[in-house]
């Protein structure tokens, strides 16, 4: 049990801190949250900045063009980025976090050369076509079909929850190439250019009013067979291999952001006088303990990943605990705002205490509701913990 950083790691931290303080002041202004083309431009500019400084793909292996940093260095990098309030990965999320690592692990040489540098440089943005209207938690039941026609696949079906589809260049798509009932054994992983004829994008409006994700309708969409990553019908395994790139640092940015929000809520409570209420103070204390615990859990996960090459069971435990506490944090924010929490825009002159962060907190509260749904619902995560960690018998199918 050791939480000390080496001299090299401390030097790396200082290097990152210095670099961030040099580049962040010259960043363009943040675009409006609803302007997706502008957000893409902002995100890709930041990615290009990272690339030119040698920090792109910090969690990618060197042979994929990444920096190949150790899990601890990844942790330090993300920590410093969060403290400096550097831009988030944003629209680059799927390319850098999933599609790129998949191509590194399973792609051909030609695919690696074609797609990886463009992701690292911020030239190309990816989206994800995995879930379908009929296939959410039970992803292996997906029905979007790809039929071979010469050296092309012809794709028909629909995808859902495709984030940033409107501004993406490519989609990593899971399609059924096997029999209708082949489940995990009949899925292939395809690279689908988003400008291919036959793709209709229909934005979905979230409960926060954002058009962050969309539904894709696929009507005779033709994609070269050469765009398949891995063997035909082996796409499920290809997808799972990517998960082995996770080093326990996936939620570091989110966790540290939550800790920052908690500090600002503490300040807010002190400013408004609610801090005088012991029940408020104790809620803040409980959340402080929980987030400190999650920070410690992150370091355990990172250490395990560094030793074993893959994170242990801690990743699922983290996701479950983080989601619950993140929602409790957002609820606290709205409780502290009292009636100022009834609008997601700043309410001028609502009191004599100066600006309230009500827009940020209302947005966080609504977004927080998705924490227990996105990337595997908490119910599915609990099944995973129960079956794979505790060894309880599987649910009869």
């Amino acid at each position, binding site marked *: *049990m*050791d939480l000390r950083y080496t001299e090299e790691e401390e030097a790396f931290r200082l290097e990152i801190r210095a670099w961030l303080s040099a580049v962040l002041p010259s960043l363009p202004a943040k675009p409006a949250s609803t302007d997706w083309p502008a957000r893409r431009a902002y995100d890709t500019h930041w990615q290009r900045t990272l690339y030119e400084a040698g920090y792109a793909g910090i969690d990618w292996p060197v042979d994929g063009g990444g920096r190949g940093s150790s899990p601890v260095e990844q942790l330090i990098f993300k920590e410093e980025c969060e403290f400096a309030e550097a831009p988030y990965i944003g629209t680059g999320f799927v390319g850098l976090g999933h599609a790129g690592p998949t191509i590194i692990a399973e792609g051909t040489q030609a695919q690696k050369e074609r797609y990886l540098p463009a992701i690292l440089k911020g030239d190309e943005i990816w989206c994800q076509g995995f879930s379908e209207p009929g296939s959410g938690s039970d992803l292996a039941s997906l029905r979007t079909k790809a039929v071979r026609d010469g050296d092309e696949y012809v794709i028909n079906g629909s995808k859902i929850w495709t984030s940033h589809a409107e501004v993406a260049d490519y989609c990593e798509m899971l399609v059924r190439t096997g029999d209708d009932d082949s489940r995990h054994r009949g899925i292939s992983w395809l690279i689908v250019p988003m400008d291919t004829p036959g793709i209709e994008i229909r934005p979905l409006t979230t409960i926060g009013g954002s058009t962050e994700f969309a539904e894709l309708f696929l009507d005779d969409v033709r994609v070269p067979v050469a765009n398949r990553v891995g063997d035909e019908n082996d796409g499920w395994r290809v997808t799972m291999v990517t998960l082995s790139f996770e080093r326990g640092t996936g939620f570091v940015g989110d966790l540290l952001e939550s800790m920052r929000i908690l500090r600002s809520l503490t300040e807010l409570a002190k400013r408004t006088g609610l801090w005088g209420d012991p029940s408020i103070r104790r809620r803040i204390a409980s959340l402080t303990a929980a987030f400190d615990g999650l920070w410690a859990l992150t370091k355990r996960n990172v250490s395990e990943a560094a030793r074993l090459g893959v994170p242990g069971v801690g990743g699922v435990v983290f996701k479950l605990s983080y989601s619950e506490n993140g929602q409790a944090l957002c609820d606290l924010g709205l409780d502290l705002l009292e009636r100022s929490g009834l609008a997601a825009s700043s309410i001028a002159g609502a009191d004599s205490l100066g600006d309230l962060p009500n827009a940020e907190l209302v947005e966080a509260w609504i977004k927080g509701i998705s924490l227990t749904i996105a990337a595997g619902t908490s119910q599915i995560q609990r099944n995973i913990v129960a079956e794979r960690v505790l060894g309880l018998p599987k649910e009869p199918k």
Partner: protein
Amino acid sequence: MDFQLSDDQRALQEGIRSLINGAISLEEIRTKEGADDTVEQAWWDALNDAGVFSLLVAEQDGGVGLSLADGVVVAEELARGLVPGPLLSTMVLGPGLADAAGGMPIALIDQQSPNSAVPLLLEHPQTVKSIVVLPHMGDAAGQCRRLDPSTLTLSLVDEPLDPLTPLAVVQGTLPEGEAIDGLDAVGLRQRSLVLLGAAQVGIAEVTVELAVEYAKGREQFGRPIGSFQAVKHLLADALCRTELARSACWAAAVTLDNNDVATREADTLSCSPGEVRWRVAAGAKMLADDAALANARTAIQVYGGMGFTWEVPIHLYLKRARVLAQTLATRTQLADLLSALI
């Protein structure tokens, strides 16, 4: 950074676990339920011979020379085994008091605030040979004092909640006792909070293990109850509580062990290293108290009616968790302590 059990810590964990399984079995422990004295001398001697009470004492002072992080591993195991006795107090006092390090059972009690209406309770009154009084938490300059239990008027309490933790009420006011020089009261309280938390983690873990085994074997509606999501999800949440609390306890121990870690974390949290130490200790016990109490109750729930019987041992863990949760600082006191730091 390598924040997981080292090979030595794994060996320590296995060593203590097998010692307890062999020399201090649950069956034997249960024969002491409700007794005025629940600590068998042979158990105490076995732990003393294994170095539990001199674990934290430096090697040059004749101890095992291990850290609080190692102590946390041992505290988890002692609680898993439901071993009764003033174990953690004797262990934590080892580095300051030669007779604790030598295996004399010593209790650690909190100096009550002057107008407290709560009676002062001493655990294991027939076992402890000496008492250390921690100054009241608000008394920053206070000194630890030492008392001889024979100078106290003690009356045994009927029906203690934990039938393996006998209690006595201390009648009248505490005698002044003897000030102990060189024993840092703040550090002692912080280290005690972390060890108490670690014991709670042991309880949180073992109760889930018992419930999982039961849920695998117990069949209703023609299949194991552990295959039902309603049961699975209770236990999955319980595991999350254990691992979150364990992470916090380990981190707290390492932070108290190492100034560099406290200083680095102080930079992250924009506070002083001293505040970091209080924060991690209080937070760790808070999460661990929650985990132990909730998991033991979850385990009883999974056992159903059987869980409500005296025969199934989970209630003993739940009751022990209650004792630990009310020791040195309750959840509310911990929350108030933590909120004063932020």
